[in-house]
């Protein structure tokens, strides 16, 4: 042990009640700290690196597929893992007594964990936007072998929404387990289109077949991307799943009616979105 000595003790300055912030401010402060930890986590950085590489090379034929968010799959997996670890941190490290003795309620800590997901989602949105401008220019029109395709903002939003969903799933799994590592790995299975009916990314009907090598009308399906569905409904479905996962995480400490209401809304959105926006027929490659 170090022989560091303790300096003579002076009576500490009073922490005035005015200096104490209310829960709302503390929630944002905690969210900022959690966001910074996510963005600096090596696993997340690795996932982002794996995702950005295809973006940089996503020119020509595969550009619409790239911009629809498919490259963010590795980042999503990494984020699920990282948020699962973060959400289980107190339980995993046995620090619950310290957390519980503080005035910040457990539900506020979960809310902060969910809010922190805005950071990776915004990062993905920004990178997608940059990639779109680089590939399609400011007029947002892709050209390949005389085929033209005007990018739609909703298609570009899928990456960010998907990232938010994976983070939310990580918070849900992590907040309910002490064994975060196996739980995180198990939760990753949620991201594999399970019964190939749910594609995580879709392109609408309007994309010319030259861009994806299939026939127009939606028979192009990959591991996580389908063509020929309603992008808007697909986004509704992803947002619904996110809301459902978030409310499930919150419900551990917050049984207020508004949480149940949000869960019901999330469930309805998820069902509607999956039914109308995530076409059956995705094929595992």
């Amino acid at each position, binding site marked *: 042990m170090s022989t560091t000595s*303790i300096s003579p003790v002076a009576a500490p300055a009073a922490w005035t009640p005015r200096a104490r912030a209310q829960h709302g401010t503390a929630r944002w*402060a905690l969210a900022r*700290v959690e966001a910074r930890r996510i963005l600096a986590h090596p696993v997340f950085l690795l996932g982002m690196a794996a995702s950005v590489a295809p973006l940089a090379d996503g020119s020509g034929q595969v550009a619409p597929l790239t911009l629809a968010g498919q490259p963010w799959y590795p980042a999503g997996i990494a984020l699920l893992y990282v948020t699962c670890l973060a959400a289980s*941190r107190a339980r995993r490290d046995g620090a619950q*007594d310290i957390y519980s003795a*503080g*005035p910040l309620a457990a539900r506020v800590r979960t809310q902060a964990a969910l809010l922190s997901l805005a950071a990776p989602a915004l990062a993905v949105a920004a990178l997608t936007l940059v990639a779109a401008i680089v590939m399609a220019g400011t007029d947002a029109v892709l050209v390949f072998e005389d085929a033209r395709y005007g990018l739609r903002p909703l298609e570009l939003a899928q990456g960010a929404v998907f990232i938010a969903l994976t983070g939310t799933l990580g918070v849900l799994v992590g907040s309910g387990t002490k064994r975060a590592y196996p739980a995180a790995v198990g939760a990753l299975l949620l991201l594999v289109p399970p019964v190939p009916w749910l594609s995580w990314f879709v392109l609408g009907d309007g994309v010319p077949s030259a861009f994806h090598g299939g026939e127009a009308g939606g028979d192009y399906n990959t591991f996580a991307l389908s063509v020929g569905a309603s992008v808007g409904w697909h986004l509704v479905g992803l947002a619904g799943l996110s809301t459902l996962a978030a409310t499930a995480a919150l419900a551990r400490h917050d049984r207020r009616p508004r949480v149940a209401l949000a869960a019901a809304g999330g469930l309805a959105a998820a069902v509607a979105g999956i039914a109308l926006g995530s076409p059956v027929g995705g094929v595992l490659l």
Partner: protein
Amino acid sequence: MTHATIRMTDLRKRYGATDAIAGLTLDLGPGVTGLLGPNGAGKTTLMRMLATVLAPTGGELRLLGLDPADPGERTQIRRQLGYMPQEPGFHRHFTAFEFVDYVAILKEMTDTRARHQEVRRVLRDVGLDDVTSRRIRKLSGGMRRRIALAQALLGDPRLLVLDEPSAALDPEQRMRFRELASSLGEERIVLVSTHQTEDVAALCRRVIVMRDGAAAFDGTPAQLGALACDRVWTADERDPRAQLWWRTAEGRHRHVGDPPPGAQLVDPTIEDGYLLVAGPTAAPEEMAA
């Protein structure tokens, strides 16, 4: 209006068929109060209830004049509470500064500049100002103990609940801890659970000895030591009539209990008084007659 007191009335905590706290009635005011007792006496259970992380099974508990069973009042208590658990549980990949800063946010300190100043202050007070950027996993057990103490000091709490704060500290650090706790106790309620009778003797105005979930002694350290007056003696051989005995470094046998006629009485210590009160359960088996 809140009152700087802790009031327990017939306080109970039951785990299955076991009464961890069995009808404890106590009032605590400002100053440092020491809590002694053998393992399993209910010290940590009591500390966790005073820290509002564990709810009593029965009885009444008021902390700083507030009821911890009421969610709103519980939050008010927690805003004035510093708690150092017996096993704090650290995020080992955090640096010392990051961990204490994180706990500071949990205590609703959200102004970054003021919070960082406060974090630096408490780390300085426990003598860790030169290791703030080191990861906790690389710190010694004693340093981690001091991080746990530092987070409890955040925000200048009116009520400090410290569960074995001096465990794993070297003699110099223990002395410094006593100095710190003593100064804190001038205006605050400081409750210290410990196995170190020397700590109690050095810094506590009041000492409570717990046994089987109840207070077996409540008084000053001097009164605790006085219980053993004329009840401690040494002899060349073990005396089976003693309540407790152990072999000293000099090869003699020190006994606590009712001395035989003509016994060579020695000056008692607070530890002798504690052993008399806590009984054989406080001593290793080989010490108990």
